[in-house]
């Protein structure tokens, strides 16, 4: 048996683990879990745990619904909040067909496939997301939302419950091997941000899934509700998941060139060009909810135009300034992504877009000047700046006609995702919103 599996089985035995949660993610990015006893773990490693995939969003294919969850031994962690007397652990799974081949509907497989393409080109892909979310007093959509505070960016909110809650969340994350770089109170009332330290993208996608669970679970323990919904409140900024990324060729940061004015290598420039070129095509995946497009509006530090800049926080791609001596931290930041994205699919999409730029040698357009963000849409368009899709519907149209995204997601997910999301948008379109009532009821 491989040493990693042996190690997990030993740990389970030594620590007296009672329950092992097998985790995997559906196509929409919801975490799924099935618990097994320690005795079943060895078999699960060898043969996988069979289950009916037809009830999982995006897995359904009625005629061949059985799939296998195969635990990835490298991801075993004890759950730090479990009763120490009855420890339980979690382990991420890859989903396979009964014949052992990778299951096309598994987002983790999409990520693995994208990473192996990068590896063929000699690259490893690192990401570091900044995850934003809100805490509210309750989760009843029929009641007005109640934030926990009225604090703002970087405010030290000693008097409220959120700071200790955030601190406890970080302790839990770190105990699970998820290092946190920063955490602070964000711009909007009751909005918080946790920045994760960069790691290889597959682990990071696992970490994002873990983070969402930990944040929500610990809030729930205090009878609060945490949400990663991209735009829960009117009039204040929404929750993004700005993602820093870099490519490494062995030990060398492939994005760095000391001779360049911006410190950016040709690879970095072509990667950014690829991101910009394909930005509209990947938006349905990086911003997958009807609600995502309420965040992507001008004025709230969210990108609306396809552009890049060094230090403008309204740009779609930002190139952070690198401190002298820290050249290996050269990276770029993609700012459209939101906290409700499926991280496996979203990281795969940005990687594929960027790598396509490298492969095809796309040329980087000039850096957007600061005044782009004060221009009207008409002016910006006249200057040749494309706009990000303004609705889920528009994003789906672009996704549908994208050969790149059909390849990244694979036929199964591409087709299912479009069908599912079209249905979501159709349902939304039939709904009369409070905005319409406020605006029209008395005037028409």
């Amino acid at each position, binding site marked *: 048996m491989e040493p*990693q599996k042996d*190690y997990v089985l*030993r740990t389970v035995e030594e*620590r007296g683990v009672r329950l092992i949660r097998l985790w995997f993610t559906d196509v929409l990015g919801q975490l799924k879990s099935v618990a097994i006893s320690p005795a079943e773990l060895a078999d699960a490693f060898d043969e996988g745990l069979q289950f009916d995939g037809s009830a999982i969003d995006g897995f359904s294919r009625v005629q061949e619904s059985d799939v296998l969850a195969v635990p990835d031994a*490298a991801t075993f*962690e004890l759950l730090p909040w479990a009763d120490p007397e009855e420890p339980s652990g979690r382990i991420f799974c890859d989903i396979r067909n009964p014949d052992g081949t990778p299951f096309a509907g598994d987002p983790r497989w999409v990520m693995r496939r994208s990473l192996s393409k990068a*590896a063929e080109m000699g690259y490893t892909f690192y990401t570091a997301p900044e995850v934003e979310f809100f805490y509210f007093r309750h989760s009843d959509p029929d009641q007005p939302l109640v934030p926990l505070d009225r604090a703002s960016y970087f405010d030290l909110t000693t008097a409220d419950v959120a700071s200790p809650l955030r601190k406890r969340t970080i302790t839990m994350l770190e105990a699970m*091997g*998820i290092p*946190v770089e920063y955490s602070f109170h964000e711009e909007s009332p009751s909005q918080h941000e946790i920045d994760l330290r960069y790691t290889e993208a597959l682990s990071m996608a696992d970490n994002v899934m873990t983070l969402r669970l930990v944040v929500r679970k610990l809030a729930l323990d205090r009878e609060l509700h945490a949400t990663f919904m991209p735009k829960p409140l009117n009039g204040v900024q929404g929750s993004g998941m700005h993602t820093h990324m870099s490519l490494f060729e062995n030990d060398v940061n492939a994005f760095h060139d000391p001779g360049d004015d911006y410190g950016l290598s040709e690879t970095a420039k072509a990667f950014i060009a690829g991101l910009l070129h394909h930005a509209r095509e990947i938006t349905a995946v990086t911003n997958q909810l009807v609600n995502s497009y309420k965040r992507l509006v001008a004025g709230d530090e969210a990108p609306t135009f396809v552009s890049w800049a060094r230090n403008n926080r309204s740009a779609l791609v930002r190139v952070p300034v690198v401190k002298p001596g820290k050249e290996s931290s050269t990276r770029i930041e993609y700012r459209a992504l939101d906290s409700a994205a499926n991280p496996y699919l979203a990281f795969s999409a940005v990687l594929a877009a960027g790598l396509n730029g490298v492969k095809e040698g796309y040329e980087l357009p000039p850096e957007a000047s600061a005044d782009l963000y004060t221009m009207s849409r008409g002016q910006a368009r006249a200057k040749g700046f494309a706009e990000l899709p303004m609705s889920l519907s528009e994003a789906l149209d672009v996704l549908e006609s994208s050969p790149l995204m059909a390849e990244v997601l694979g036929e199964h997910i591409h087709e299912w995702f479009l069908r599912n999301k079209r249905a979501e948008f159709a349902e939304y379109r039939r709904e009369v919103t409070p905005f319409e009532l406020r605006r029209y009821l008395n005037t028409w």
Partner: protein
Amino acid sequence: MTAVTEPLLVFPDPPPPELVRTLDLGGYNWKAAGSAQELEGRWLGAVVSAQESPDDAFGFSRALARRGLDIPVLLLVSGAQLDELDMRDDLYTDFCLTPFHQRELEARLAHLVWRSGTALRPELIEYGPMVLNVETYQATIAGRPLDLTYMEYELLKFLAGSPGKVFTRETLLSRVWGYDYFGGARTVDVHVRRLRAKLGEQHAGLITTVRSVGYRFGLSRWER
């Protein structure tokens, strides 16, 4: 790593002279004790002679078992005492008839020590508040379990095996992951961060970054 120098425990105190002779001839590090009350530390095993007083000998063995010291016990009994072994299987690991044959006792002792070496004497790496058990893959920090993934454990074991020594990322990568590992030395940085996160704020400093060189576990040779 801790050296294997635990002594053999011998009952009664003083032990019968022929036993003392055999132990000394065999080069054993041993200590005699008349009672199990205040025993502490690690023992390679125990030789309990029932020749003088079977009741005291069984009492001693029982006390050892009760204290959970988990020491393998070689019991020395005469042929006439064999009946007394009935229903006392839990009090000894092996026995030897007295008067014993010197070479038999040596062989039984060697076997007892071997058992102790494989089953009861875990190889430990200890440093300050941290203990790594190399056999069970378990780690503790200040007495609480430190739950690591396999690669985190291997990295920590390697670093802690040579406290104070600075390793380059490349060395760590090749020694812990293997030369052909795809991903380069960045992998080492990522795992060091994960380890520090798990060690917690208080102990994260056990692994220090040595600027433009690599990583070191524990204090440098100058600081000690």
